[in-house]
């Protein structure tokens, strides 16, 4: 029997429902788990997304195409299937997808995490036969410290910079992580926090959806010659090493990412400080979620899935690793 979902167009294709999940190439019908660029691209004829995620999605992919907002937990029919979105806890409006058909029920993650996040609804498990799990951090070395400890560390570092009269430049992804940090800092730190231009519009989208965050100002509004001494500046990693950084003489650079769990990852990027905070599940989170989904079969996608699949096989489950990007390359060269 063929699988309900198969790799295609850089995402997953469901023939029974005639739709794609997170395709990277233009397709007629796309179910989008969340608006990060490796999951959501412009050019689909029709988009289905969680209601909370729609403003960010249209901000990212534009308004062309038809958009359908879906409520979490409310099933809708697509072809021969019944599709339901559940909160993924990854970023605002992120979802996991349940696809029910007469051949069985599949659960598909885009990205997800199990740690709490003030900007989005917590991950909700559901029962399925086959679980397609993201596996960005699929090795047991990835174990996240509690969020409040990491925020304490960030505040301590900022205080140290304030004492030394230096700017504290914190790098993090512009969508999701930045707003999560700004929300965590709400009520814990006095603003304003300076924002890189790339983060400004997305942060506004979050604010319009009622996410409470510390006060922010775009760096572009600072006076000419202002030196940001003791201030916190939040910027995307792409700004590191760019001429833009000359605005922050003597700065200390921190990076917030799950990758910072590994010392070498931080050192080769030249960051002074690495803060281990991720919007993805860590290894215990991945393993725990497999149990919570009660699936008989697990397929690892997005990242280094071989180790997790091997580990699950040893635990008696059916498990394999799919490379969705390979489907994109095959389609390209064909």
């Amino acid at each position, binding site marked *: 029997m063929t699988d309900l979902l198969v790799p295609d167009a850089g995402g997953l294709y469901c023939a029974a429902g005639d739709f794609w999940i997170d395709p990277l190439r233009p397709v007629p019908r796309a179910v989008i788990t969340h608006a990060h660029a490796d999951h959501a691209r412009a050019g689909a004829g029709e988009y289905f997304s969680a209601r909370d995620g729609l403003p960010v999605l249209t901000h990212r992919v534009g308004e062309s195409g038809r958009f359908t907002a879906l409520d979490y937990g409310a099933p809708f029919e697509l072809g021969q299937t019944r599709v339901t979105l559940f909160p993924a806890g990854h970023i605002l409006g992120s979802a996991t997808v349940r696809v029910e058909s007469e051949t069985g029920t599949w659960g598909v993650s885009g990205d997800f995490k199990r740690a709490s996040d003030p900007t989005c609804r917590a991950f909700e498990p559901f029962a399925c036969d086959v679980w397609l799990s993201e596996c960005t951090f699929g*090795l047991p*070395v990835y174990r996240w410290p509690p969020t409040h400890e990491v925020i304490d560390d960030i505040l301590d570092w900022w205080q140290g910079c304030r004492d030394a009269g230096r700017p504290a430049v914190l790098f993090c992804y512009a969508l999701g992580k930045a707003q999560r940090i700004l929300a965590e800092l709400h009520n814990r730190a006095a603003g304003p926090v300076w924002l890189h231009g790339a983060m400004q519009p997305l942060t506004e989208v979050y604010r319009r959806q009622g996410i409470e965050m510390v006060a922010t100002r775009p760096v572009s509004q600072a006076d000419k010659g202002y030196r940001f001494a003791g201030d916190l500046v939040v910027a995307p990693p792409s700004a590191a090493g760019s001429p833009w950084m000359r605005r922050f003489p003597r700065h200390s650079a921190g990076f917030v990412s799950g990758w910072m769990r*590994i010392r070498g990852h931080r050192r080769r990027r030249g960051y002074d400080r690495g803060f281990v905070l991720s919007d993805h599940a860590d290894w215990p989170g991945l393993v725990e979620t497999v149990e919570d989904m009660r699936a008989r079969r697990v397929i690892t996608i997005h990242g280094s899935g071989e180790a997790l699949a091997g580990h699950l096989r040893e635990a008696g489950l059916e498990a394999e690793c799919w490379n969705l990007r390979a489907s994109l390359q095959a389609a390209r060269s064909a």
Partner: protein
Amino acid sequence: MRAFARLFDRLDRTTATNAKVEALVDYFGTADPADAAWAVSFLTGRRIKRLVNTRELREWAAAASGLPLWLVEDSYEHVGDLAETLHLLLPPPDTGGAPPNLSRMVNDHLLALREADDDQRRRAVLDLWRQLDGSERFLFNKLLTGGFRVGVSKRLVTRALAEVAGVDSSLIAHRLMGRWQPTAEFFAALIAAKSDDDIDPAVPYPFFLASPLDNAAETLGEPDEWQAEWKWDGIRAQLIRRAGQTYVWSRGEDLMNGRFPEIEAAAEPLPDGCVLDGEIMAWRGDQPLPFALLQRRIGRKKPGAKSLADAPVAFLAYDCLESDGRDIRTRPLAERMERLDHALRAAPGLLRSRPVDFADWDALPALRAGARERGVEGLMLKRLGSPYRVGRTRGDWWKWKVEPYTFDGVLIYAQPGHGRRSGLFTDYTFAVHDGEQLVPVAKAYSGLSQAEIDRLDRWIRGHTRERFGPVRSVEPVHVFELAFEGIQASARHKSGIALRFPRIHRWREDLAVTDADSLSDLRRLLDGGRQPA
């Protein structure tokens, strides 16, 4: 251990040199001298001999963390640092008790492992893993596995110690030379304010290192203020004759006594209180022999008659640092040359690296171009008025090496790097054409920019053909220009050749695989190059 771990955290949390020195000064100024001595030892790159083999460590960590061994191995391959991998995999510690001081940790726990049997060692390590947390546990693993690089150079440590002691850093550098035991007494003497009368006769001076000449020689000023010498292709060494004893030190601060008996014999007639800087060379008659012959001698602690006959060595002196028991490093080079000649008159078995005559700067390029035929690496330029400085100080000593050989090779294998490059494919194997086949001829690790490394890493992940453990074979698509210093016939390599110091010059995206060089191109260098008997 705790204070040392906090020092490590401070060093690890900044990329600024001044902040690192400040952290070191704070630590050395307040630490217990016995702890500080061990800290100096580790931070300057000295290791304790490996106490536990890494296979055992991996097995114990697997058991302690409830993971299968293969998952520990996969994790190590990803992280690229065993001490860190173990630390990240182990469960959180049991208790919050204070860990022992650094010196007690080393003396009572680590060094005690040497006498312990297998079972005792396992239990001792597991106990400490259960007690230690955070950076303490990571550092404990680092000490256990021997390697210790934390982003501070010996130079920075020297600078900080000089600041604590209130003396010149060249004095600290001297006190750190040679062999010493990390004890409280040693540390007290290290940061003492007084002068250096009490230095052990075996202790060498810090070496002065040349910098690569990056501007035209003309920019150095008047040619008659400079001395040119051949840059010899041997082992840099310091030859000490003091108190009736001879000591031969390598630049890596290994005492090499016993390895080169012909040099020790030749040094015996030197006047007492004499220290020479020079090069150990494989040498026969008045000719240098290839470096490969010298390599056969380096590994032999007590060479037999056959290696002495097959690979004879000589000491080529080019500087004199101590004469008649007086440190003359601050005297100008021209004067030191006179003292060198004086010393060598007594010891005719030692050779003198003669200055190369040149009237003006225009004469140098031709001399340098002929270096390879002479069996030397290029030219050295030294300011006649300069003192003998410490370490890599720019301005007075320049090295001007011959242009390396180059070839265009095809990337065929890649494997992940370690440390700073962990998790990235940065160790590459390159091949050249041999008929229909591609044969590997060189491994290279350096030469690409971070952006190129990142791009190549992504490409490798998407174009892997096969995996052999950590090694991946990739589609032969990318061509790179590689530089190397020399070539030797080799029976151990499939290609039949071995290249010396290969490194990546450029990513040649303009070239296709068919444009890469062939094995016969390289072999031609072997036949045409200098191959003295």
